[in-house]
């Protein structure tokens, strides 16, 4: 959780009217900015984010670095597209804004969206990069939109000048059906060098892969961020619970292969649980989210129709892992199931107590109107003791079995 102050430089030049990123380049950019702000503020509550525009009438700082997510989201509304982007001035103003941050302990980072052609030469950009590096400011570049000749080269040169120990990154996003924000989620810009916003990113990525179009869980994070967050958290909890249940079921199933007795009804129940657990499991395993979407969709359809054949195929992957699992654990489960069926557990404590004759006699002595020396009471005690002893023997047989594992 790196403590960071970030300035985001938004490109709102004329080139952003183009529709090759849906719905328009500018809208895709705005979505990406919203996501980044959310991720930054989530990864560390003391992180601050600011936004400035590079085109329009000139470079303009919309909001200075703040941790108030609402303010940042609000300022992205009602932005006009027009003018020409001034990359060098934008970066320099961003650096100045970061210099005057309130908390000097924060690391400085600039994220710049470059959608229009770059009119500056390599030398100027390299000089800017070196100045940023000298003042230990990290720079993330999102290259999208216009594919100018030499643009990538210039931006790579800028990155090389700025990069200090891999803290700066560049991402090239080609136009296509993938949304800009979806592509960015898997990049180090979002995950913050491996830690930090990865939880946020992983949840968002899983939701995107599940085939839910547009917003996660059908709730617009902009309109109701708390609800979206609650849904996301509950989804992750459910997934964790199902995975735990799936593991247990897989162990019990592997025990069945060794020949333990297991009611098949319970297995069916766990299989249906396992089926739905395998679905997110399969999702997590697929590294490339976009390509496997069709396969996942078919799998989801098959599972929803409760087809055991398809589900067994998916379950085999889990079982092969579980088969190599702890033998002792399987044995313990078996024993606990057997014990439960005979309902011994509840009786053992009581019988042990009763077997303790001195304890019983002390209780009886305290009762009014009962004479422990009375022969009938003594007979009763003797019979109880013999009964508890026979039970005790059974328990002792079981106890060595438990101890041997």
């Amino acid at each position, binding site marked *: 959780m790196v403590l960071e102050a970030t300035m985001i430089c938004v490109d709102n030049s004329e080139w952003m009217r183009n529709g090759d990123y849906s719905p328009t380049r500018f809208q895709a950019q705005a979505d990406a900015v919203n996501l980044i702000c959310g991720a930054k503020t989530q990864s560390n509550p003391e992180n601050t984010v600011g936004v400035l525009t590079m085109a329009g009438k000139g470079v303009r700082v919309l909001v200075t670095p703040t941790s108030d997510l609402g303010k940042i989201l609000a300022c992205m509304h009602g932005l006009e597209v027009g003018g020409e982007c001034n990359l060098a001035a934008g970066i320099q103003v961003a650096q100045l804004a970061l*210099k005057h941050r*309130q*908390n*000097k302990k924060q690391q400085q980072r600039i994220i710049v969206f470059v959608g229009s052609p770059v009119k500056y030469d390599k030398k100027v950009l390299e000089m800017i990069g*070196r100045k940023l*590096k*000298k*003042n*230990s400011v990290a720079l993330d570049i999102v290259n999208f939109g216009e594919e100018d000749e030499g643009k990538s080269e210039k931006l790579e040169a800028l990155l090389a000048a700025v990069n*200090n*120990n891999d803290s700066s990154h560049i991402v090239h996003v080609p136009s296509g059906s993938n949304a800009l924000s979806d592509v960015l989620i898997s990049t180090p810009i979002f995950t913050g060098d491996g830690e930090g916003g990865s939880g946020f990113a992983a949840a968002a990525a899983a939701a995107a892969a599940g085939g839910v179009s547009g917003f996660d869980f059908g709730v617009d994070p902009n309109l109701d961020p708390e609800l979206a967050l609650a849904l996301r958290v509950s989804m992750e909890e459910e997934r964790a619970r199902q995975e735990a249940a799936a593991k247990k079921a897989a162990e019990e199933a592997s025990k069945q292969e060794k020949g333990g007795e297991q009611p098949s009804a319970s297995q069916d129940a766990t299989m249906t649980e396992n089926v739905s657990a395998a679905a997110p499991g399969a999702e997590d395993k697929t590294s490339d989210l976009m390509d496997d979407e069709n396969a996942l969709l078919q799998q989801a359809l098959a599972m929803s129709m409760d087809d055991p054949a398809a589900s067994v195929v998916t379950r085999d992957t889990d079982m092969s892992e579980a088969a190599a699992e702890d033998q002792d654990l399987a044995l313990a489960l078996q024993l606990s199931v057997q014990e439960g069926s005979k309902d011994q557990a509840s009786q053992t404590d009581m019988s042990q107590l009763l077997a303790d004759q001195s304890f019983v006699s002390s209780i009886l002595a305290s009762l009014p109107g009962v004479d422990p020396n009375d022969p009938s009471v003594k007979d009763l005690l003797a019979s109880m003791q013999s009964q508890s002893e026979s039970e005790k023997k059974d328990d002792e047989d079981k106890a060595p079995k438990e101890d041997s594992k």
Partner: protein
Amino acid sequence: MACVHDHSCEDHDCSSDFSLYKHVDLSKVSALNEAIPGSVKSVFRSWEQRLNSSEGHLESNEGDPELLVFIPFTSDVKIKSISVVGGADGTSPSKMRAFINREGIDFSDAQNMQPIQEWDLAENLQGVLEYQTKYSRFQGVGNLTLHFPDNFGGDATQIHYIGLKGEATQLKRDVVATIVYEIMPNPSDHKTKADGGGGLSHVE
């Protein structure tokens, strides 16, 4: 080894004087324009170890001799003198400018601000030179920033050792972490216990 003091070092242990390195908060030491991040921490050693830079030294980026070193202390110190061991072949720093008790200085600040003191350095490869401070100005130092703007012609600047001589008090300078300034302060926004009942002041 020759020493600038007019005594022989065997009688008077110089190493105990240059003991402020023990009071440097190493985890918070930082430098700007260093080639290897974190290498600045290796320059704070004991006097005997001043020439032993086996653990690394501080080097600036290629082609840019400026260096800025930020040194926070664990308690307030009084600094009597500073010793700097540079590198060979013109990589030693030629000037040193000091700022005290200012956090977050970067290069543009350092170039524009008046330092509390500045020195012209000589090439000091053996570590025998020390630069006296105007002691009255270096009395309650919570952190020290050293700016080395130039060197003796080398491509980069190297610093192998920074020695600080002085005394440590056991006090810590009071620092208010964040101050919020209000443009239009309204006393009724800040209710105190006195407003609840009792107290001589009454605010609408």
